[in-house]
């Protein structure tokens, strides 16, 4: 069953066509990767799913609900968790405060509800929140830095905190834009392990954009390849790797024939 369904998505900025008729489904519990050369429109797809861009045409269905016209904060409250290519953390705040803000999504921020929100429902919510915070901190192994200001942390750790914050939202799906970009081999391995843990232990489907082909091939169940805003291929990693169009997009005409060369590109 698909939890997220993208149908005939097109996006233009003025005369520039960024996406044309991209469709795909993300199934319950899977890790789904979106790959493609730089400028192919991968991040635009994520931005449409999380509501930062409005598509020129097409639909986004989440949990069988059309969310194409919904505000990004509403989508977040529905359970779309997101991490960014350029880390979007509250730099002046501590790790714990950042994670606490992740749990905020479920508390609602209506103009008035946020001013008058007391009583037993509130207390229950707070208990649940502490539990989530603690389990997220354990899962991502960031106990030792919980009090530190985020701005002072190493890049790899910041990415991990961003993931922790997204998890504290108790998302139904996680959208990750280049989670291991700029990381060394060890950090990349850690991150891949965390993504697998999250996916397996919490059964959260993950949509992932990445350039690191080795990681993509290792952890994802299905892969979507886009180029120049169009869908080139979709399928299991090893199928996609062998797909002639994909090889052409990555290596040019003459390089066709050797699927494994793609892995080397990462």
């Amino acid at each position: 069953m698909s939890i997220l369904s993208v149908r005939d998505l097109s996006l233009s900025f003025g005369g520039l066509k960024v996406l044309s008729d991209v469709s795909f489904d993300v199934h319950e519990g899977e890790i789904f990767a979106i790959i493609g050369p730089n400028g192919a429109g991968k991040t635009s797809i994520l931005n449409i799913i999380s509501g930062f861009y409005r598509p020129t045409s097409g639909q986004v269905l989440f949990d069988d609900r059309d969310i194409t016209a919904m505000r990004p904060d509403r989508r977040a409250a529905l359970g779309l968790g997101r991490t960014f290519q350029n880390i979007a953390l509250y730099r002046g705040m501590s790790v714990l405060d950042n994670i606490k803000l992740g749990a905020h999504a479920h508390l609602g921020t209506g103009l008035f509800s946020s001013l008058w929100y007391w009583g037993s429902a509130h207390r229950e919510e707070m208990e649940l929140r502490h539990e989530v915070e603690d389990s997220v901190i354990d899962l991502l192994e960031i106990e030792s830095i919980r009090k530190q200001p985020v701005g002072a942390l190493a890049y790899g750790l910041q990415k991990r905190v961003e993931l922790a914050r997204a998890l504290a939202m108790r998302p139904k799906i996680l959208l990750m834009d280049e989670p291991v970009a700029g990381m060394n081999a060890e950090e990349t391995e850690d991150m891949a392990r965390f993504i697998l843990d999250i996916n397996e232990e919490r059964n959260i489907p993950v949509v992932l954009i990445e350039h690191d082909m080795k990681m993509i091939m290792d952890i994802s169940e299905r892969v979507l390849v886009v180029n120049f805003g169009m869908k080139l291929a979709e399928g299991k990693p090893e199928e996609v790797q062998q797909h002639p169009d994909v090889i052409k997009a990555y290596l040019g005409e003459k390089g066709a024939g050797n699927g494994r060369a793609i892995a080397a590109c990462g």
Partner: protein
Amino acid sequence: MDVLLQLVVSGIAVGGVYALIALGFVLIYKATSVINFATGEFMMIGAYIFYSCMVYAGLPAIPAFLAVMGCAACLGFLIERLILRHMLGQPTISIVMVTIGISAIFTGLAELVWGSEFCTFPALFPRKPLVIGDIILRPNIFYGFVLASAAVLVFAGLFKYARVGLAMRATASDQTASFSMGINVKSMFTLSWAFGAIAACLGGIILGNIGSVHPSLGHLGLKIFPVVILGGLDSIGGAVVGGFIVGIVENLAGGYLDPYVDGGAKDIAPFVVLVLILLVKPYGLFGKEEIERL
């Protein structure tokens, strides 16, 4: 020595009021990065509404006060919804011009509605001057200070401890992240304009009560610029410290220099200190380092 103490104490008292108005400015800047040049005019309008409530509508002071807070919130709300919302994403300079335009409109409207006479509030506080040791404080300044401090504490508390304050701080810190955390960023913008307008209008009532109300009361808002720039445009604590510094400096200059230069030193001194501090700390005393300079 007595003179010095007297000047410093009354400087602190006036500074408290400056801090409140500066807070109105900072609340808006922090969340929306808009520099509100109409802060002084918000102040003036607040003072006039208070005057009308008391003199024309005959309300007692406290209901009049609450009425101003309500009107101020509506004013901030409307300005954000009707004007600033449409300026999202435009260059800073355009947005600044819009707020300057708003300030001119308010000054004109005030003249149309209330005329250009000086208005004075009915007496709000006992007239007996307060004597603390050798220091004498005018009651309007003393009670004004008490009121302003209370308002600053309430705003600061709201910002620091309430959930809505957390959401506003989050919005100020990173809008993209806040959207994806489920924070309704746009309503936080509206809310910060409403809060900013309330702070400025309350400050306007207090200043109007110390002096008198006139369409050009808004020019006093110019003094808020040294206050906020000293403290750092985005720092609430900075607004408070900046308020005290400007209040004290202005009083000292007025007391010690004005007799020799036939007046005027009082108005210039805060700006001189402002320039000196900016030379050393270009982002103000408590400002975040990457913020844009005025």
